[in-house]
C-alpha cells in the first residue's frame, strides 16, 4: 500500500522547503558557525520570562478564550494605536494565534477559494507560497530585483493581476532581503489594491527591526484598514521565537472567520506564553531597543565586509538578514552554500530557497554573536577570494 495515493494532492505535490533540505546537511556536521538562523541570538529578556514563571506560580494553566486573553488583545490594540494610530477593537478585531505563522495560515484558509490567486513577493519567506497552496490557492510570485532595491512596485502588482487575483501579500521589512517598502511606494500599491478590489495580507513581523526611516504599517494608509489583514507576532522583536505567539488584526467579520478555524484547530494559544506577551508589550520596550541597536551595528559591519570582499551587498534597512550577490563567483546559490559549508563550516541559506528571484544570492543572518560573525566573515572571504580570480 502506498500512502502517496492517500495524501491530499496539495500536500503531495508540495516540494520540501529549501531551507529544510539545507538544514539536514548542516545538522550532520559539528562546530558549524551558523548564519542560517532566522531567530534572534538573544534569549527572551528576563522580565518576560519571569512574568511567565510568576503566572505558573499563580496557577495559570488553563485554556483562554479562543481569541486570546482579553488583556493581551487589549495590549495589542493599544500598541497598534500608539505605534500607527490604528484602532482595532480588542473584543472582535484582534485574534491571538500560535505564532504569526498560524495567523498567516488562517488568513489564507479563511480567504481563498480553490484557484484564487495571491500575489507574493519573490524572494520571500518560504511559508507564503506553501500556505497559499495548502488553502487551495495559487501563489503568483512578483520577482523583485536588487537593481530596484528589491522593491515591490505598484506597476509590478498591476501587471500581475488577473480576474482570479484575490489578494496581495506584503512582507515589510522583507525576509530574506531585508528590504523595506517606503510610504510612497505603499501608497501607490494601495491605489492599485483599491482599484482592483484586492485584500492585502500584511506580514509585519519585523516591523520593530527597521533601521532606516520609519516603518509604515500598510493598514494605516487611507482606506486600507478594512482591506488589510495585519499579521504580527512577538518572535523577532522580543526574542520570543519558541513561545509561538502571534496575532492578526482586521475587521470583525474577517477576524471572526479566522477565529472559526482557529477554535477548531488550535483552540487557543498557550496561556503562559500569552501572559509573557502581555509583559513584553507593557514593559519590553527598553530591552527591545537594546537588541535593535546591536542588530543595527552588526548590519553595517556585515554589509561592509561583504562589499569589501567583492560580494556586492544590498543594504538591508530592516529585519536581520544580509543578502549578498554571489554571482561573480560563477556558482549557483545552492553550490555556493553547500561548498561553503563543507569547506569552511559556515552555514548560510541559498537564495533560491526563497524563490527563483533569490538565485544568485545567499541569506546571512546577522542575529549571531559578534565573535561568530567576525570569524564567519573571515572564512567566507577566504572561501571567495580564490574563486574571484
Amino acid at each position, binding site marked *: 500500500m502506498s500512502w502517496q495515493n492517500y495524501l491530499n494532492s496539495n500536500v503531495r505535490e508540495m516540494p520540501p522547503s529549501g531551507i529544510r533540505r539545507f*538544514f539536514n546537511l548542516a545538522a550532520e556536521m559539528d562546530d*558549524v558557525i551558523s548564519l542560517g538562523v532566522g531567530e534572534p541570538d538573544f534569549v527572551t529578556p528576563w522580565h518576560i520570562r519571569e512574568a511567565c514563571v510568576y503566572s505558573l506560580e499563580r496557577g495559570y494553566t488553563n485554556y483562554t478564550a479562543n481569541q486570546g486573553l482579553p488583556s493581551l488583545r487589549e495590549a495589542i490594540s493599544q500598541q497598534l494605536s500608539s505605534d500607527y494610530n490604528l484602532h482595532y477593537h480588542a473584543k472582535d478585531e484582534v485574534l491571538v494565534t500560535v505564532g504569526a505563522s498560524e495567523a498567516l495560515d488562517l488568513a489564507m484558509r479563511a480567504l481563498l477559494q480553490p484557484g484564487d490567486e495571491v500575489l507574493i513577493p519573490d524572494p520571500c*519567506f518560504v511559508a507564503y507560497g506553501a500556505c497559499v497552496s495548502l488553502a487551495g490557492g495559487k501563489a503568483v510570485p512578483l520577482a523583485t530585483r536588487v537593481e530596484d532595491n528589491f522593491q515591490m512596485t505598484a506597476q509590478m502588482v498591476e501587471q500581475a493581476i488577473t480576474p482570479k487575483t484575490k489578494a496581495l501579500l506584503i512582507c515589510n521589512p522583507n525576509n530574506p532581503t531585508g528590504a523595506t517598502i517606503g510610504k510612497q511606494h505603499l501608497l501607490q500599491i494601495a491605489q492599485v489594491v483599491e482599484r482592483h478590489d484586492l485584500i492585502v495580507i500584511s506580514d509585519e513581523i519585523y516591523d520593530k527591526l527597521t533601521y532606516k526611516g520609519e516603518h509604515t504599517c500598510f493598514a494605516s494608509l487611507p482606506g486600507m484598514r478594512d482591506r488589510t489583514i495585519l499579521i504580527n507576532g512577538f518572535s523577532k522583536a522580543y526574542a520570543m521565537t519558541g513561545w509561538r505567539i502571534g496575532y492578526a488584526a482586521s475587521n470583525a467579520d474577517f477576524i471572526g472567520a479566522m477565529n472559526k478555524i482557529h477554535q477548531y484547530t488550535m483552540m487557543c494559544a498557550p496561556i503562559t506564553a500569552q501572559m509573557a506577551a502581555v509583559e513584553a508589550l507593557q514593559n519590553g520596550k527598553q530591552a527591545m531597543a537594546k537588541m535593535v541597536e546591536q542588530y543595527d551595528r552588526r548590519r553595517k559591519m556585515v554589509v561592509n565586509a561583504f562589499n569589501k570582499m567583492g560580494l556586492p551587498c544590498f543594504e538591508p534597512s530592516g529585519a536581520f538578514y544580509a543578502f549578498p550577490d554571489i554571482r561573480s563567483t560563477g556558482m549557483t546559490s545552492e553550490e555556493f552554500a553547500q561548498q561553503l559549508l563543507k569547506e569552511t563550516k559556515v552555514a548560510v541559506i541559498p537564495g533560491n530557497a526563497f524563490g527563483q528571484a533569490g538565485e544568485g544570492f545567499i541569506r546571512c543572518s546577522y542575529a549571531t554573536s*559578534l565573535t561568530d560573525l567576525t570569524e564567519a566573515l573571515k572564512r567566507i572571504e577566504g572561501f571567495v577570494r580564490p574563486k574571484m580570480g
Partner: protein
Amino acid sequence: MQNDKAILELLEQNAKISTAEIATLLNMETSQVEQRIKELEQQGIITKYQAMINWDKVDNDKVTAVIEVKITPQREVGFDAVAERIFRFPEVTDVHLMSGQYDLLVFMEGRTMKEVSQFVHSRLATMEHVLSTATHFVLKTYKQNGCILEDKEVNRRLVVTP
C-alpha cells in the same frame, strides 16, 4: 559624541575588543576610534580596563567584606575627609557615601577573615570621627558589575531555521 557612547558601551561589554572591530561596527575609521578612546581616557571617562574574574574558580583564598561605617561629618569637608582616609587603603576596593542607617559603605578584600577583622578593629574602627562599624562577609558572588559569574544559559538554536 553619539559615537562616544557607543564606543564606551562596546568597551564596557568587552575591554579586549579591538579598535578595528569597533571601527567596523560603528562605521568609523580605526584611527578615529583610537583618537576618541585616547581622549576619553584623558578626560577621565575611561578610568581603567579590568578583567572580570570568577575568583571562586581559582585556588586563591580571598575574603571579601562589606562594612557599614557610621561617622561624624566634619565642618567644611563633610564626609569627604574620612572617606578619603579610608579609600586610600589598598585593601579597600570600593567606598560609597550612602543615605539611610549608616554613612559609608566600604568594600574590602583580605586573604583571611582574621586579616579583615584586624583591619576593621585596628584601622577603621579606631579612626577619628568613626562612630561604629558593622562588618558582613561575602559568602558567594553570583553577579558582579552586571555580569552573571556562572551563567548556565546556552545557545539552543538550531543550525538552520526559516
